[in-house]
């Protein structure tokens, strides 16, 4: 039975992770109080709520991997562990009194816009409907995961764990364990698993660039200073921000500095791995930055422990007892950990989004997602994306970029509500010009230098990354141009702004 909530909210937010909660805080600060947040789980936290594998932590310093408007002076380490980030998000929801706005257990299964009424309707998996004049899609880029389609996976009889959906009850002590994948999650999991398991076999397809990570405990004195003088913490955050900004000149564009990063990576490898053959197998063959940079000081040492082995042979198939590799050997295993990443929805959210005239977002994005400033999409008025198309950073904190998106959507939503608009739809020509420029700029970036990564669609289209400095991105997000949109008034359906 479908239950319709007859109230039409000012704003409906999909997701109660960092972005969704951030949006609610910022909207409330702009006096937009009539908000509802739909969250599929029973807790806030988004990806960080679900990330609970051993060793999980952020790989951008916590001072920068947080919102500037939600200060936390007591981060325990440079790179805080996942449970601390989870607590921070929980505390953020409490501190800003967001929880009362959240409807838990409401997984959105569809979003549809009624152009004549200027109202979005969200349907949820439990059969409820929510109406709102504006929508913030904050479902996150890394919210979903599934086991990869590896040959024979259904035949495997042992235990399977996905890194993004950890099984906290499984006891690794004395177990024969495989980890498939050597990306950002794997390099955090492996050093922890080798401490418990009988042996760990690491199945690698492509080695990544690994830079050392200086992860130190924050001295209590520093925490005290940050608590008593928030300006000092802000200063530290700024220093980190500009340090990361500088790294764009090596990681976003292929420059002589990119070669320097490669040298650093090789030096790190040389320093940590003495066996020349193992070193060769761990040496990446793509431009640094093309795939996500990895930071770890304990991954290489873990690989060289007596109970750990790097397997670089291709996986031929999974069998009932383990993994068969192409060198003809069957690896008998008790548990396989799939550190194979997330289901990144490069062609739109995993549910139908129906815009003006019944148009479907997944259809329009099938050839590659396109938006205006990563936030608005022509034909889908009053809908604002966080972590939308071409908003990913390769060198700086995602949270910094999200803050830019929050500022933008607050301006957009304020414009709709203050002007009592039926809808505000970004102009097609503006969106086209913007994307032409973005794609042209992307051609010069490391992401397009020939490696295959989750940033690209199967056809090689990059709808994930923003080709520039965070400063540039933030500047464009601060600049909300009303003239870039068709604005239609609610009452008489008259156009408020002219179209091109």
């Amino acid at each position, binding site marked *: 039975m479908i239950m319709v909530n007859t109230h039409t909210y000012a704003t409906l937010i999909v997701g109660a992770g960092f972005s969704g909660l951030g949006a609610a805080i910022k909207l409330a600060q702009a006096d937009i109080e009539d908000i509802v947040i739909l969250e599929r789980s029973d807790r806030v936290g988004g990806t960080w709520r679900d990330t609970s594998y051993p060793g999980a932590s952020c790989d951008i310093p916590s001072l920068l991997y947080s919102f500037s408007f939600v200060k936390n002076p007591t981060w325990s380490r440079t790179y805080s562990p996942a449970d601390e980030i989870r607590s921070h998000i929980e505390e953020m929801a409490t501190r800003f009194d967001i929880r009362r706005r959240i409807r838990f257990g409401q997984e959105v299964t569809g979003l549809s816009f009624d152009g004549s009424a200027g109202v979005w309707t969200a349907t949820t998996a439990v059969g409820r409907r929510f109406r709102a004049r504006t929508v913030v899609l904050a479902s996150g880029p890394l919210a979903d995961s599934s086991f990869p389609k590896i040959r024979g996976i259904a035949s495997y009889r042992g235990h399977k764990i996905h890194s993004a959906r950890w099984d906290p009850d499984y006891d690794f002590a004395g177990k024969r364990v495989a980890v498939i994948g050597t990306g950002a999650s794997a390099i955090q999991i492996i050093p922890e698993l080798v401490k418990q398991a009988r042996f760990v076999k690491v199945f690698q397809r492509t080695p990544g660039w690994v830079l050392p990570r200086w992860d130190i405990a924050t001295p209590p004195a520093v925490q005290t200073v940050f608590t008593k003088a928030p300006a000092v913490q802000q200063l530290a955050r700024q220093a980190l921000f500009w340090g990361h900004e500088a790294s764009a000149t090596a990681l976003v564009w292929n420059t002589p500095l990119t070669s320097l990063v490669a040298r650093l990576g090789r030096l790190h490898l040389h320093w940590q791995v003495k066996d*020349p053959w193992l070193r*060769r197998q761990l040496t990446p063959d793509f431009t640094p930055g093309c795939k996500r940079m990895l930071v770890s000081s304990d991954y290489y040492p873990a690989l060289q422990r007596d109970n750990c082995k790097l397997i670089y042979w*291709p996986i*031929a198939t999974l069998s009932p007892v383990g993994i*068969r590799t192409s*060198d*003809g*050997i069957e690896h008998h295993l008790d548990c396989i950990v799939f550190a194979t990443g997330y289901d990144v929805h490069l062609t739109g959210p995993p549910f139908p989004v129906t815009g003006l005239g019944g148009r479907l977002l997944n259809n329009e994005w099938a050839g590659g997602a396109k938006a205006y400033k990563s936030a608005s999409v022509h034909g889908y008025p009053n809908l604002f994306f966080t972590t939308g198309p071409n908003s990913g950073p390769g060198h700086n904190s995602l949270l910094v970029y999200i803050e830019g998106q929050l500022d933008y959507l607050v301006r957009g939503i304020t414009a709709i509500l203050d002007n009592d608009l039926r809808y505000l739809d970004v102009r097609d020509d503006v969106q086209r010009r913007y994307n032409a420029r973005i794609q042209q700029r992307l051609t010069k970036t490391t992401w397009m230098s020939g490696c*295959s990564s989750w940033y690209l669609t199967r056809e090689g289209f990059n709808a994930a990354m923003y080709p520039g400095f965070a400063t540039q991105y933030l500047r464009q997000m601060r600049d909300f141009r009303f003239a870039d949109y068709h604005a239609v008034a609610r009452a008489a359906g008259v156009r408020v702004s002219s179209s091109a």
Partner: protein
Amino acid sequence: MSIEMEAMLVKIKDRQWALADIDWTAPGAETIDGEFRPKLKAFMADLCWIENIGARGFSALAKKAPDSTLAEIYRYFHAEEQRHANAELALMKRWGMLGDGEMPEPNVNIRMAMQWLDTYADGMSLSILGTVIPMLEVALDGALLKFLLDEVDDPVCHQVFEKINNDESRHLAVDFEVLNMIGHAKARRLAIDFVGSVASPGLIIGALMYLPLLNRVRNELDDMGMEPERLYNAVKRFKQLGDRGEHTWRVPTYQILKRHAAMVVNPRHPYHLLANSMVWLSDRYPRPLLRPVPSWFKELTHEPAA
């Protein structure tokens, strides 16, 4: 002759097999007779090390591949050569040629070849590696393995080599397609590449390793009673497969190897005076000068499960 590399990669993935697919305890091991056994042991040891060296060659090729599909194919070929070596070790184990924990000792020419591979292979051009590897594969596929099947009656050996031969036929199809592709390059590019490679110390040292290694194996086969025609036919096949490609003839390394192979298979050619002297000399090479065995050499195993 043109093959679609994407389709080939799919086929390769579809045709994977494992040591666990074979019943290593099935009857037939007793068919190896006493007199033949030591010769077969020496030959099998060399064969499996040569497969292992081939594997290392493919690993170097994977880094040279012009596109990701070919790189992935070479990644599989690297593993498949290793699989062949593992299967050959398992046959030796089955025939009682290896004690518990025993591994066959690589001869001095193998040790030198491996040393060379570790030092220079990753720096060799696609045209050099892409020609030497098919040459070795044709020799293995066309002569050694067929000879072995004629001499050995063990049905498990036949089962293993049928699988190996099927893999090798895919390797050859790709090898010669790539050779043809290399030959498609502009003459100037081929010349620069060739002169640049030949003038390199890596290739000169490589040739000094390659000549005695090849002759040592040839002599072993001779000792086991293999007719020279088999090797002659193998080299003829190398030429036939190469000449089938429209552009392969333009690759200078191909022309040189073709001529060199013709000398190797002719037992009366004066070339053997030189090559056998090199074998003799290498036997006297001071062992302490050899570098430690690289760790990739220790990956070999006759155990189907790990």
